[in-house]
């Protein structure tokens, strides 16, 4: 099953440092294949820290997520939680 979602990034760091780390970790903790990118751009492998960091996604930017696999909904829920939680409140152990 393929699902798609667009999320506006809340952490001040955007997709960098800890939020990026938590994001990639969450992708790896699920079975679904996830790709991500700017809504008008190419998608990259969400399991790659290099690819995700290179997107240069900042606070307030939209990011499109596409997941394919049995737990596609679950992984997108988790990624949305990470992307919409202000950084100070992000509990990385929970992901």
């Amino acid at each position, binding site marked *: 099953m393929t699902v798609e979602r667009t999320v506006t990034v809340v952490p001040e760091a955007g997709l960098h440092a800890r939020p990026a780390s938590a994001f990639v970790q969450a992708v790896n903790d699920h079975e679904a294949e996830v790709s991500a990118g700017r809504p008008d751009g190419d998608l990259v492998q969400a399991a790659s*820290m*290099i690819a995700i960091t290179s997107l240069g996604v900042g606070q307030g930017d939209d990011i499109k997520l596409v997941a394919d696999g049995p737990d596609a909904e679950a992984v997108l829920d988790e990624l949305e939680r990470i992307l919409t939680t202000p950084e100070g409140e992000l509990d990385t152990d929970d992901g």
Partner: protein
Amino acid sequence: MADRTLHGTGATPRSGVGTVVWYGRDISLPDPDDVKVDPEAEGRRFANAVDTAREELASEREATAERVGEDEAAVFDAHIQFLEDPTIEEAVETMIGEGQPAPNAVDAAFGEHIEQFEGMDGRMAERADDLRDVRDRLLRLLTDGERVDLGDLPDGSVVLAERLTPSDTAQLDPDRVAGFATVTGGRTSHASIFARSLALPAVVGVGEALEAIEDGTEVVIDGDSGEVLVAPDDTERAAAASDSGAAVVDASVETTDGRHVEVAANIGQPAELKPAVERGADGVGLYRTEFLFLDRETPPSEDEQYEAIRETLDTFPDGRVVVRTLDIGGDKQIPYLDQPDEENPFLGERGIRRSLGPDSDLFATQLRALLRAAADGAGDLAIMFPMVATVTELDAALDALDTAAADIEECDADVVDVEVGVMIETPSAAFMAGELAARVDFLSIGTNDLTQYVMAADRENERVGDLHDPSHPGVLRAIHRTVTAAHEEDAWVGMCGEMAGDPDLTELLVGLGLDELSMSAVTIPEVKTAVSDTEYSTASERADRAQLAATRSEVHTTLDT
């Protein structure tokens, strides 16, 4: 025997002698034309190297979290993610499949991304450093399998390296390592700052000549002169080995004629607390809170700040800890704060000007954290406001402190009396020292900035470096005026710039009437000894003459006679 001596930049005024252990050298890639590659075997070698690297990173992460802190350990999380990055893995596997040896494939796969990140600014460039760290770790595992464990070196080791990253330096144990020298780096590189904060002999920026020194060679690291001396003779060895500086003086000190002078430490990060205690600091004369705000994406919470200050107060149960409130602007940038581009940032919105303006919420949070820590911590807290130029600013800062105290009382928490002070860094503050001192308990002279503003000479500009010297009579008069005016108001006066840590100037400073001198831990024993050797009455006469001199050379003539 000049050829035995290599020259670099001294990072810390101390010498050490020890045996060379090279770190991270000799990574030479095989020539793919010379080796017959079995792709399957190379693939296994790569997978094994990744596994070992992952184990190393996990154990270094744990050790760093314990020794330095959880925030510093977080760098290893990013390294693990880069290590496991599928983009790298796919590229390496493809190249191995095409007949490349594993080390060459790793080098090429990382190289592309390192270049990409290097070309970007700030945060992205830091990722290039992370990638380089991970690449070098894999290459080391793939080329010789041997590994120098920086956290477990034999006693008396001198570490030589091309460069030392933050994760490298966090592992060095100053109780065992006699010093280090690096090919690259300058006085303000991470490794230099680390060396100073731990009073570790270090020379950086030696250049490629360093690479000629073999493992197991005995060397002297002279962090004062910036020299690395190869194969020292008995005299040179003994001189370096005995340079633990002056003997550590644990008790507080006074002049031969009984005037007490407090000798305290400047603290810029938690790792500096232990060396400060070990080198006999009476307390902390300058606690720079900026480090709590750096290398992160959002400001620290009130509780985080409370914990950091509380720990410091508990480290000096019988002493005083002077905490400077947030002092950013000028050369200090914090990415998540909205700092404007200013034409003259040193003459712009910095220090208390920001705390009373755009950062007033941060200021309120910090003051509450400080007051709560003062109530619970062992030592005595003093709060100090930076970059004050006017009495009006000081009054506003004092109002903010009253508001913070009222907030805390409303929550039924205890509020204790703390000493409050002002940094004297601007000529205006020096001229207004009496009026400022009448409102507070102490003044602390920040000689780096005061010299810069009195002489109108940028401290980073080498072309006017000669003017950036606090022993010019213009600066001495500002100091003299500040001390005299403060004492008339029964306020005590400290000094927390580089000048305070120069043992050659101790007599002058004691003579000018300074009640407290605060410096990097490394020079505390020398300064304490110098205070004990000073006769206040003589020093005072000399200082009076020195500040009336017409030129800097006259000042020095006065001091030498």
